[in-house]
């Protein structure tokens, strides 16, 4: 071992809402040797560019802007005197938890960590990943990049805008661009439903008379130097464009809000196993990955709709990392959680249910694969139904959750658990 390695008990990668909540919880649980690394110059992550309100309704019972929400955690972290190093990019994490980082102030640093919390967040799916045909001019931006340009740099990316995808950032940016005087021609969504929150469809599109074209997509991009227009077409049930429905929209800007991808390149370098459904790590109910002492939380684990839930999940991960560092773990039996009919990407994928003590309630989070009205979420083992609860609506735009109490967990200990959406209540 080289003598320039920096020993640390807990290293948190990312000082967005996930990393901050995790670090705060770990410190409160007694972890003193703790470093948080953040690549941006400011703490707070993507919240800093989310200057609209609507954050914190669940956690603080207040309606905050993104920066206000972030500031609460930043203040608490400061009060706890957390060692948060901004402008520091993590380059590599090994399975032995050697974490290499670089910053302008300190150069290359290699930390030898006993535990690591992955809180890198997610990135936007770019145009290239969709393989939208056409030319490749300036003027095609991911919605988050446009948001950064407008809200952080103070510049407009264009004046006549089409938005592809109705994810929340796209909806928020439709309103933001309209407020700033741009003409927002349409928000085009491939699916027959929006993947954004309902409140955003109302407040960001309907209130500004911006049409939402469901079951439509952009089939061609025009313009050599700057975007001059897009061709929009309706799609059939197979999501393939319907010939004859093409419509040309002259515009100088196309914003893409077509999905978020958990950013797990570092996780992969650490040997962390990913779930194809969430594209985030496979974790147990303590948010621990397959690599002992490596935890994951927030949007790097699975993409959330609300930051409030990111904070809550991450605090649990921080507590779990502290427990890992500070104490012995009780013996447990492992249960595997599977996505059943109608369900995608249930997290956690594994439940380590203690043998000799009462398990704590676990919340399973998942997304439905389409819209379901008046259906039931049913959780079962091969032998029995653990619960079957009726819900008014399931929509892919809103993460669903179901709680398993101690008694159910004891029933499920060591067994395969399936989460599914069923029309009828199961008994």
């Amino acid at each position: 071992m080289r003598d320039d390695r920096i020993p640390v008990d807990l290293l948190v990668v990312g000082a967005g809402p996930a990393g901050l909540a995790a670090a705060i919880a770990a410190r409160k649980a007694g972890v003193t040797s703790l470093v948080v690394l953040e690549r941006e110059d400011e703490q707070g992550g993507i919240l800093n560019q989310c200057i609209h309100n609507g954050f914190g309704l669940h956690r603080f019972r207040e309606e905050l802007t993104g920066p206000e929400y972030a500031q609460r955690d930043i203040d608490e972290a400061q009060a706890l005197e957390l060692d948060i190093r901004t402008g520091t990019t993590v380059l590599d994490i090994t399975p032995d938890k050697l974490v290499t980082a670089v910053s302008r102030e300190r150069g290359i640093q290699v930390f030898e960590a006993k535990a690591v919390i992955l809180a890198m967040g997610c990135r936007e799916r770019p145009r290239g990943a969709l393989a939208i045909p056409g030319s490749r001019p300036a003027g095609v931006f991911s919605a988050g990049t446009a948001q950064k340009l407008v809200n952080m740099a103070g510049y407009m990316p264009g004046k006549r805008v089409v938005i592809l995808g109705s994810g929340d950032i796209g909806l928020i940016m439709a309103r933001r661009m309209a407020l700033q005087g741009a003409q927002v021609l349409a928000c085009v969504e491939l699916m027959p439903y929006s993947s954004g929150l309902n409140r955003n469809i109302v407040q960001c599109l309907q209130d500004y008379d911006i049409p939402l074209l469901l079951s439509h997509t952009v089939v061609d991009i025009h313009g050599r130097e700057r975007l001059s227009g897009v061709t929009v077409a309706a799609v059939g049930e197979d999501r393939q464009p319907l010939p004859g429905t093409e419509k040309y929209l002259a515009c100088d800007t196309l914003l893409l809000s077509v999905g978020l991808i958990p950013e797990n390149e570092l996780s992969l370098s650490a040997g962390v196993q990913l779930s194809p459904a969430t594209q985030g790590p496979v974790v147990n109910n303590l948010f621990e990955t397959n690599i002992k002492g490596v935890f994951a939380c927030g949007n790097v684990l699975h993409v959330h709709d609300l930051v409030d839930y990111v904070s809550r999940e991450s605090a649990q991960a921080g507590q779990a990392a502290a427990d890992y560092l500070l104490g012995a773990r009780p013996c447990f039996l492992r249960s595997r959680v599977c996505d059943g009919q109608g369900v995608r990407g249930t997290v956690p994928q594994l439940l380590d249910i203690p043998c000799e003590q009462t398990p704590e309630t676990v919340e399973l989070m998942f997304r439905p694969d389409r819209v379901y009205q008046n259906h039931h979420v049913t959780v079962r083992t091969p032998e029995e139904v653990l619960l079957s609860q009726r819900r008014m609506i399931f929509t892919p735009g809103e993460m669903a959750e179901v709680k398993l109490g101690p008694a159910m967990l004891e029933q499920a200990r060591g067994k395969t658990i399936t989460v599914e959406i069923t029309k009828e209540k199961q008994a």
Partner: protein
Amino acid sequence: MYDIVIIGAGVTGCAVAYRLGQYAGRVAVIDQAHDVSAGASKANSGIVHAGYDAKAGTQKARLNVKGALMMEEYCRPLGVPYVRSGAMVLGFHEEDRATLEALYHNGLANGVKGCRLIGREEVLSMEPRLNPQVLLALDVPASALVSPYELTLALADSAAENGVQFLLGTRVTQLAYQQGAWQLTTPGGVLTARAVINCAGGDAGRLHNQISTRQVHIIARRGQYYLLDHNKPALFTRTIFQAPTKMGKGVLVTPTTHGNLLLGPTAEDIDDCADTITTRDGLKNVLEKARLTFPGVSLRRVITTFSGNRAHEAGGDFIIGAVEGAPEGAFEAIGIESPGLSAAPAIGDELGDLAALFLNLPKKADYIAPTPLPKAFSAMDEDERRAAYQKDPDYGRIVCRCEQVTEAEVRRAIRRPVGATSLDGVKFRTRAGMGRCQSGFCSTRVMEILAEELGCELPGITKSGGKSWMLSGGIGKADQNAR
């Protein structure tokens, strides 16, 4: 009055300029694009073909084999990525055997060394991810990979360091020989030169036909590609071709020098050489054919799609040398489609020498040898990174997270002899924005650095020069910079 004006700043034009940098003379490269390597040189397969494919006896065959043999040593002093990867041509049916044997013998006739026909087992042991239905393959160990745009940019830098001027964003509308000199008409005025070298790719036919009694006919042949994210370990180590059949030429699956995977190209004859769109059908076609080679290809790994247009001359061969049927002092490289990249070192040296000899230009006494491109931060080990940071703390600042490009590298890209002036310019010089997020995170930072280095406001920054503006104007205080 220039001694020599080279028209076209692609790999051919820049290879000629690089050669002419060794001679004392007033030389310029002119291109309508706002950067070098903006056409087919940045949008091709990046393969140094061994030379088994081009028909024996053609210029293509001669220059391909010659250039390919030169390439490794050519790249070394420039610091350009070159990988001796090898290649395979796959046969899936018994009737492909004759095709592969013919390629083998054509390779022998062209002087390509090391080729052999191998059976399924050996093929699959060398490249385990290939379609197991493969029957046999031609193994081509002499095939290699080169980064085509990095090569072109490095050639341009060295030429510029030796006094070659680059006149970018300048279209030659008319080429004519008057009063004993070549006149190049541009929107900004007329340039004169004692000799011209037409390396204008898709536009070369137009210029040739303005000065020669013997007409040529350039057909733009579009090639569409998928680019996939890098994988560790690499999915394939070699370039994998498919044996041409009655159904067409097939597509290749190849790693790039940076470890990405490239699928393509299509071959579609189109009217406009500047039209580099991708199409739904074209991309579908690439994917279907690529799946024959690599059934496990995953679209989740796709970073981007793009297309480039090869300049195919109707006669099918390269036309290299003094322009036939034109006044003296005009030289050309026409129809430089594949294997034009492989042939570039040979074409550059031959055409450069030919023009210098015509003008009797002496070799320069104070020739500046090329400065090799520094190793990329992403490719450095820990000690190299520490050393780089010691010299320049801007190495401590990561601008592009996907490709781990530092601020030091972005600034250097802008300060190079032929420096970046746009986001794409930075991208092709540093890879910032070339990764999986496609500049979503780094574009604002790169724009800020560009504005600082170029001394302009943010709205002055473009994607690729010209009217490819990124911002329509400012908000509030920044509004005074509105477009």
